[in-house]
């Protein structure tokens, strides 16, 4: 084990896989000498050189589109899109090309590529640089969606994403980049589709991912002091979703709260709620609740942004209302 930040862990995940497989390369805006807009690619350019760490023009469509072609031709690209908010500039390449190529071709193509992209609010970056929009991707059959919440998961899920033979959208949260934790050294893989119980509890199940998982954990500690013992489940990957672990937990606790940072309507919490209502209705002794961002764009002023974001207080309040 080694102490690493979440950003260092993502980098280490890429580094180890690049050492392991010469077909893995990295391309994106400012990822080379500059080390990435958030410093995530860091020294990889110095370590692997210009053949394998490439700056691109500001051209999101061809960043993702070229990755589709390179993947179909046998490479394993990692394409970086500087902010998840920019995915609108390359959505066709993701949802009509990468996601569907295998199916359209009757299973005769593989598209092993990772699109890495940062998400999240909390830094006054306003409406076009702060979003969480994971349900854009979960709504597309053919791609997988990964959202790590800890440094160790960030590394292990990166390895799994790179080794996966499908297009994977790997969403890293800007607020987590500087968070430190223990991370296994060398090769380390966290399988896609395996949830992690981040805190065991018996009174209520809280499902949360990415930065919101950290908020849920902090809220759970405060709730414990009030006599409510919450179980916090981190699905880690939304597609594939480990629904069994969620249902198992709800069967124990009888209550479910889902927390996410994306807006409420059509957010992924609705999907989890529907699954539990459908397959775990008899376990429930209270209505399923959600704590999410409201259905508004993200405002700039810190006062407004704070009001926008789900928080520990909002989670605690929601949980208390369920008892």
């Amino acid at each position, binding site marked *: 084990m080694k102490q690493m930040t979440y950003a260092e862990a993502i980098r280490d995940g890429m580094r180890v896989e690049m050492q392991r497989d010469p077909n893995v*390369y990295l391309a994106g805006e400012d990822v080379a000498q500059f080390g990435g807009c958030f410093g995530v690619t860091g020294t990889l350019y110095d370590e692997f050189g210009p*053949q394998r760490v*490439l700056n*691109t*023009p500001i*051209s999101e*469509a*061809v960043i*993702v*589109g*070229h*990755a*589709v*072609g*390179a*993947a*179909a*031709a*046998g*490479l394993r*690209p990692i394409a970086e899109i500087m902010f998840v908010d920019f995915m609108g500039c390359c959505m*066709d*390449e993701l949802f*009509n*090309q990468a996601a569907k*190529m*295998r*199916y*359209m*071709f*009757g*299973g*005769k*193509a*593989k598209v*092993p590529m990772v699109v890495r992209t940062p998400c999240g609010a909390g830094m006054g970056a306003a409406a076009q640089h702060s979003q969480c929009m994971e349900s854009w991707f979960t709504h597309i*059959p*053919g791609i*997988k969606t990964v959202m790590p919440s800890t440094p160790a998961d960030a590394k292990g899920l990166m390895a799994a994403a790179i080794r996966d*033979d*499908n297009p994977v959208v790997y969403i890293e949260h800007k607020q987590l980049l500087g968070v430190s934790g223990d991370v296994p050294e060398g090769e380390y893989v966290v399988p896609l589709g395996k949830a992690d119980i981040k805190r065991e509890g018996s009174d209520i199940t809280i499902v949360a991912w990415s930065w919101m998982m950290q908020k849920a954990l902090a809220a759970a500690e405060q709730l414990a002091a009030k006599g409510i013992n919450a179980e916090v489940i981190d699905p880690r990957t939304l597609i594939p979703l480990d629904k069994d672990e969620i249902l198992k937990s709800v069967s124990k606790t009888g209550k479910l709260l889902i927390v996410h940072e994306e807006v409420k309507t059509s957010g992924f919490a609705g999907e989890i709620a529907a699954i539990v209502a459908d397959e775990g209705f008899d376990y429930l002794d209270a209505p399923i609740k959600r704590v999410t961002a409201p259905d508004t764009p993200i405002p700039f002023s810190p006062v407004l942004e704070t009001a926008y974001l789900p928080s520990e207080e909002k989670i605690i309040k929601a949980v208390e209302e369920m008892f």
Partner: protein
Amino acid sequence: MDLKKEQLLDIYKKMCTIRAFESKIVEIFAAGKIPGFVHLYLGEEAVATGVCANLETKDFIASTHRGHGHLIAKGGDLKSMMAEVFGRTTGYCKGKGGSMHIADVDLGILGANGIVGAGMPIATGAAFACKYKNNGAVAVAFFGDGASDRATFHEALNLASTWKLPVVFLCENNGWAISNSQKTHQNITDISDRASGYGIPGVSVDGNDVIAVYEAAGAAIERARKGDGPTLVECKTWRHRGHFEGDPGAYKDPKDQEEWLKKDPIPRLEKNLLKLNYAVQADLDKIKADTEADIEEAVKFAESSPLPDPQELFTDVYAD
């Protein structure tokens, strides 16, 4: 011209095969035997054939919604293609793709594509893989005049020229972006002029002259193979049919249509073959008859092939 007799006769046969394939689709689509949309390549046969005559199996192409010609020219299997158009299990995509998504990755065919302009980034990526692996292969992106207006055209040409990738951007200017004539959707006559914006060569040729296409594409492909980067090649041509089957093409001036029919690439090549003494009329008639028989056989194969089991819906979404 460095094309030998056998090569030119082979090119002729490919063009006749495309003509026969597409003509048969006109017939079976009108008869209601195939579902969905079909966009036919009739009249443009010289482009795909002239380009692909320069390619090897290891090379890649990215095709378009009007893709049957590219696929046949790159070596696609006629029975698998026809069965796919019929939506059968024996089709290239097991009936999951249809006309607009036929692909054969083993032959370097990275798919027809239902999104106009989507093939250029994909071909750019395949070319990147060729350069990365240093395997001497190249990629060709086919696209139309309409696609040259898309952002993907700009992004792909800009990246490919900056990275000096072994890719050829092959514009099939058939004069029409669906119902919009070229002059109504762009302020230029020669799309190859756009190459100068990327610091790469641009060339326009008569896309109905297969030898001219072969030579221009050949030079571009050779340049790509040598590591000198991309070229934009514009082939000026004309689609005989509407945008899709069912579109009568009422927006076309009948005089233009008549003029272009006179420039049909197949009779032009026949004249050349006869003039060069590479064939006599009977040879050409036999080649034509043979290709038509091949297509009949492909149709029989398709029609006698099983329809997919509904469970097939759920497979191939993800690779295991």
